[in-house]
Structures are given as structure tokens and as C-alpha cells.
């Protein structure tokens, strides 16, 4: 158990340690840069070779955003960003430290990709060493937990979150403060907090990046949430496909326990809270909260109808708060700076920032964080650098298999929950896949339907049978065998599956089809079976 003074001592010692180095080389060791750990070792070896161990530190940090230029290395205090750096560049990079920059490796940070972003959730990513709690503490981690425990009542914490206007970042957009106060009001001496890290949307890697880059931020957010709602146990449900995130979370939990930031009597207050990691096992439906709960209980991930909501009867029948990784990662900033400051960012209905994973046919693939209300065009053309190889941008897919495709001529739409819904897509968790003219939109719709068909848990008929029928119809259309009548059937079936499925998976599965039917109807018509030509009858 540590007191607040002892935590401050750890911070002090870390700051002194850092002050001992004249230069620091920060290497991305998140999965976005797959060779990051190799480059880090090569740089450390090069520093030792040059006999500069006592003045140059090589540290592994998290994601610095511009995955397209990975592996990224930041040089401090010169504040140079190098990329792509390979092991072969290590000696040259180390030799240049304190001297002239290596022009061929310098990444220009005065471009929109860097200047147009605003980092709240990602403020520690690329700065914090994820495996060292000392580094996280020195960057301010757990400061908000300390503040909440020593200066605020649980009610005051919920009040700040409510005033911030924060809404669920997993895609649903439910007001976080409202969810917290429902769980706080629920009766019961045992309550749970679950962090939903089952980032199932293909093309979305925001949560993975946050967990790998700044795991303590998520633990802190969970602890603050637990204090606010009166929970004593927490679970992080994370995809088994993210081994590095799992490893870093487990390390972070151990370190936090050792310093008394998790466990019994946190910071010598009467607040108890501990966290366990639970692994998903490759089932998309487990992102749905009732299915997720079933999976933590060791059962098949079948959703159940709500109400009762998990806030009243969740894990093992107890009141349970379920928030997504990014939602929880916003909490420390809200408690630190106040809800009003957070609410000053964004639009009337969507406050704060949103992290997006930019991928597909876009120059600057990577992770970006922008204020809500930034337009799609600003994100894709300015920050993302547009479509490479002289091709033209056709559409962007947001919201994964539950979302839709938005055509390029609507890119002046601001990104907020309501505007994207109006276009037949949705915010979703934050994947943005850019497509150029080489993408066939009907085939894209078929791709997502295949996904939903395989991922349907099979419990309810509309989803289990409907997605299979929809996939068959789409297959017939892409194979140019469908008649105009079948196109009408497709639309009708979409509406039926949407209106009658049990959970969000089935209800949103038709979205990619409906949105492409709406915005790219011509492409469907072109795919219809050609009328037999003369002589072919």
C-alpha cells in the first residue's frame, strides 16, 4: 500500500532519472510498427557500441500515429521524428544524436496530419513507456484518481462526467454520465465495471493502440468509474487476437497493484478495486454487452433481450457498468480538467474528440484524434493526405459491419453521432476505410454481409437465416445473375432483418447494403443480369 506522498516520490525519482540523460530516443513498440522492438534493440546496441549509455536513453513507447511511416523514432529534446527507421539505420541515428538531423529520415511534423489533430485520449501515446508505471506516473497517470479519491465524492465525479457530455465511444453513443448514475443508483453491495476491449470491427485499431501505448490510462479510468458507481471488481474483456495488448495490460495491473493503485484500500483510502483480464475467443457478437457478459461467465456469447440492462442486472446478476476502452480513456482528462473544458470541444450533441483508425486507400494510414465536428474531408484529404497513386477517392466506410459507405461528394459532413446516422452510416468505434475507384461497392457490401453471416451467433432466426439469404442475393448480384426483382427483394429483406433481429449485430447488419443501395444504386443496377443480346436467346 502506498500513500499519495509515496507515489509522488516515485514520480520524483523518475524525473531525476530522466534528467540524467542528455538525449532520449523514443521508439514505437506498438503493433502498428511491427519491427519496433527489433529497431529498439538495434538502437540500444548502437548506443552501447558508441559508448553513450550514460547520455542517451533508448525507450520503447507506444503509437505515434503515422503508421504509414513506421517504424517511428522520436529524438528528444531535439524533437525530431524519424521514419521509416530500420535496424540498418540504428548506428547512423545514434551518431546523429546531438548533431545534424538525418534529412532522408526526417518526418515533417508541420503538416496537417500532425497540426490538425487534438490529443486527449492519445495524449500519453508515444510519450509513456507502457511497461513502466514510473514513466506513466511521471506523465501524470493516476493524478485524476488521486484527485477523485482525495477531493471528490462519487456523486461529484459522476457530475463532472455528465457535464462533459461524453458519450459511449464503442459506437452506441449512449451518454456516459447517465449510464454511470444508473449503476450508482442500482442496489447491491457487489457491483462490477467492465472495460469492453473486444474491438471486433475489422479496420478498427484504436483500442488496441490505446491498450498497447498507455494501459495505465485505461486502468485509471476504470478505477475512477468504480469509485463513482461503487464497484469493487473490474474486468477487461480483450480480444485474444491482441497478444501484445494483453501482455501490457497484465504487466500494468501487476505494477499498479504493487504500488497500491489497485487492490485493497487504494492509496490508504477505504476504496477497494481490483481488475482481471478476460480473453475473448474470436466472436464478433461478444462486443454486444449482454453477449460479452455471457462470455466472461464462461458461456457461449449469446445476447439476451434488454431490459433488464446490465446497469441493473449484469455480470452474475449484479449491477454492471460496461464502457469501451476509448470512453474510459477520456475519463482521466475529464476529472483532471473538469467536465466543462471537455464539453467546450466538439459539437452541440457530440462532445470531445474522437480517435479514428485511417486505413485503406489513403496516404497517411494510421491513428488520428480530432475534435468531434471535423469534416470527413478534413480527416481524409487533409490529415489523411488523400488517395495515393493519382487515383480518385470514391467513398469512406465508417462503423465497420454495422456502418455504411459514404460517397466522396458528401465529405463536407461533420463527424458526429447524428450526422453519420443521417447518411445511413454510423460513428461506430472509429474505423475509417478509404476506398478508391478500384473498389466495387456491391462487393464491399457482400464482404460485410459475409462477415455478419459468419459472426451471427445463431440465436435468433432473422439474423441467422436473414444474413445468409442476404449474402446469397448479394453473391448473385456480384455474379451478374440477379434480376431487378431480386434487387427489390434485397431491400425488403434488409428492412426485415434490421427491424426484427434480437441484438445490434442483426439490427445493423443490413446497414452496409442499405447505405450502398442509397448512395451507389447505379452500381447495383449495372451488376444486374444483362438482358440477353440478339442471337443469345
Amino acid at each position, binding site marked *: 500500500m502506498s500513500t499519495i506522498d509515496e507515489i509522488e516520490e516515485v514520480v520524483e525519482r523518475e524525473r531525476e532519472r530522466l534528467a540524467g540523460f542528455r538525449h532520449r530516443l523514443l521508439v514505437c513498440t506498438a*503493433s*502498428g510498427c*511491427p519491427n519496433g522492438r527489433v529497431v529498439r534493440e538495434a538502437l540500444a546496441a548502437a548506443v552501447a557500441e558508441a559508448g553513450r549509455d550514460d547520455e542517451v536513453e533508448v525507450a520503447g513507447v507506444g503509437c505515434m500515429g503515422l*503508421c*504509414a511511416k*513506421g517504424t517511428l523514432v522520436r529524438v528528444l529534446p531535439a524533437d525530431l521524428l524519424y521514419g521509416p527507421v530500420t535496424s540498418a539505420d540504428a548506428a547512423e541515428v545514434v551518431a546523429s544524436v546531438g548533431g545534424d538531423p538525418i534529412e532522408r529520415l526526417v518526418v515533417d511534423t508541420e503538416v496537417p496530419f500532425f497540426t490538425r489533430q487534438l490529443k486527449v485520449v492519445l495524449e500519453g501515446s508515444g510519450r509513456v513507456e507502457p511497461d513502466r508505471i514510473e514513466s506513466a506516473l511521471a506523465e501524470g497517470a493516476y493524478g485524476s484518481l488521486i484527485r477523485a479519491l482525495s477531493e471528490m465524492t462519487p456523486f461529484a465525479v459522476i457530475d463532472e462526467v455528465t457535464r462533459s457530455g461524453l458519450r459511449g465511444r464503442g459506437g452506441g453513443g449512449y451518454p456516459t454520465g447517465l449510464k454511470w448514475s444508473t449503476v450508482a443508483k442500482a442496489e447491491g453491495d457487489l457491483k462490477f465495471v467492465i472495460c469492453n476491449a473486444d*474491438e*471486433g*470491427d*475489422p*479496420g*478498427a*485499431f484504436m483500442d*488496441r*493502440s490505446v491498450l498497447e501505448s498507455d494501459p495505465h490510462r485505461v486502468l485509471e479510468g476504470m478505477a475512477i468509474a468504480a469509485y463513482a458507481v461503487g464497484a469493487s471488481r473490474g474486468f477487461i474483456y480483450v480480444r*485474444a*487476437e*491482441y497478444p501484445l495488448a494483453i501482455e501490457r495490460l497484465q504487466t500494468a495491473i501487476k505494477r499498479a497493484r504493487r504500488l497500491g493503485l489497485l487492490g485493497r484500500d487504494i492509496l490508504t483510502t477505504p476504496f477497494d478495486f481490483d481488475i482481471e483480464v*478476460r*480473453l*475473448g*475467443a*474470436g*466472436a*464478433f457478437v461478444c462486443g454486444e454487452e449482454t453477449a460479452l457478459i455471457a*462470455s*466472461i*461467465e*464462461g*458461456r*457461449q*456469447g449469446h445476447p439476451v433481450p434488454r431490459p433488464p440492462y446490465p446497469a441493473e442486472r449484469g455480470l452474475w446478476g449484479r449491477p454492471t457498468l460496461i464502457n469501451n476502452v476509448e470512453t474510459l480513456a477520456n475519463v482521466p482528462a475529464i476529472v483532471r480538467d473538469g467536465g466543462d473544458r471537455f464539453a467546450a470541444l466538439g459539437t452541440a450533441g457530440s462532445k470531445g474528440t474522437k480517435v479514428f*483508425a485511417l*486505413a*485503406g*486507400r489513403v496516404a497517411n*494510414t*494510421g491513428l488520428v484524434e480530432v475534435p468531434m465536428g471535423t469534416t470527413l474531408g478534413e480527416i481524409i484529404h487533409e490529415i489523411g493526405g488523400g488517395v495515393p497513386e493519382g487515383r480518385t477517392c470514391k467513398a469512406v*466506410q465508417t462503423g*465497420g459491419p454495422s456502418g455504411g459507405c459514404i460517397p466522396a461528394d458528401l465529405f463536407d459532413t461533420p463527424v458526429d453521432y447524428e450526422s453519420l446516422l443521417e447518411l445511413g452510416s454510423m460513428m461506430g468505434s472509429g*474505423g475509417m*476505410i478509404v*476506398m478508391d475507384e478500384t*473498389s466495387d461497392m456491391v462487393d*464491399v457490401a457482400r*464482404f*460485410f454481409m459475409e*462477415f455478419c453471416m459468419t*459472426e451471427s*451467433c445463431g440465436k435468433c432466426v432473422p439474423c441467422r437465416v436473414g444474413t445468409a439469404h442476404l449474402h446469397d442475393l448479394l453473391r448473385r448480384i456480384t455474379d451478374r445473375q440477379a434480376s431487378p426483382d431480386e434487387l427489390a427483394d434485397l431491400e425488403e429483406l434488409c428492412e426485415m432483418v434490421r427491424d426484427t433481429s434480437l441484438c445490434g449485430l442483426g439490427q445493423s447488419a443490413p446497414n452496409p447494403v442499405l447505405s450502398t443501395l442509397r448512395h451507389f444504386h447505379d452500381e447495383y443496377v449495372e451488376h444486374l443480369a444483362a438482358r440477353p443480346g440478339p442471337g443469345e436467346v
Partner: protein
Amino acid sequence: MYNLVPPEPPSDDTRWKIVGATMRRHRHRPDALIETLHAVQEAFGHLEPEAMRYVAESLRVPLSRMYGVATFYHFFSLEPPGDHTCILCTGTACYIKGVPGIVEAVRSEYGLELGETAADGSLSFRSARCLGACGQAPIAVIDDEMVGGLTPESTIEEIRKVMSHVDH
């Protein structure tokens, strides 16, 4: 009545110790089922009937529920993996950057569809629903090594590399 003492492992293979430790950590509660199956698959590569029977008995879970869970989740495999594996990411970013071409190349080179293992057990060709490294799409994990920016040709080349690798 259930036995109060957990059953003995099926064999004296030391890997059962890891499985046993996982179950002990969860105090043999039935909700540790998925965690335990992860431990079994990590230790043995797949879930064998005798392993499932042992875990079910240890956690006091009906065999039907065990089988339901083992087959519901895509991550668990009841078949042994090949000597080498190529896990191709079939997420959206990878798909629009050329996964269909890669699948075609593996089909024509090795005669394998996604999800299949070669008859001689040399190679498994599996898919993953997005590995979250979309910046380097298309990507695959070939024998635990992640490779990005793949083309049909380079994928075959990478698979050949690991398959021709001889341990010294």
C-alpha cells in the same frame, strides 16, 4: 455428486501443469472455462477430446456446455494445426488492398482454401478477422511473424521461406 477433489490430468505431460495452474488461479470455478481452454490451446495447439473431458470434469461443467463453448468461438480449434501456419488477415482494409488475390495465389500454389490444413499436415491456411495493423495492409502472421504490405507473389515467397527452413 461432484468430486470435491479435481481429477488427475490425462497424462504426465508437463504441459498439464500450466492448465492446472490456470484452473487453480480461478479456484476451479465454472466461469474459468474459456480462460482454461485458452491455456489448453496455447499448450497443446488445439483442443483434444481428452483435454476437453478433463477440463469439463475439473470445472464441473457438463460436456455439452464444454463442447458448445469450444465450437462457438472461432479462436478454438479442435483440429491439430499444421507444422507451419499462415494466418491471413481478412479485415476490411486488407480485403480492399488485395486479399482475394492472395487467397487465389495460395489456392493455386498449395491447393488450400482459407481454414484448411494440407493433407500431409505441412501447412495450415487460416484467416483472422482483422489483426489491427491496418496501416500495413494486407498482412498475415506466418509462423508467429507478422508480415505486411503483401502481394500474392510475396505471400507465396514468405510461406516458402518458413516451409524450407530447417532447424539446426
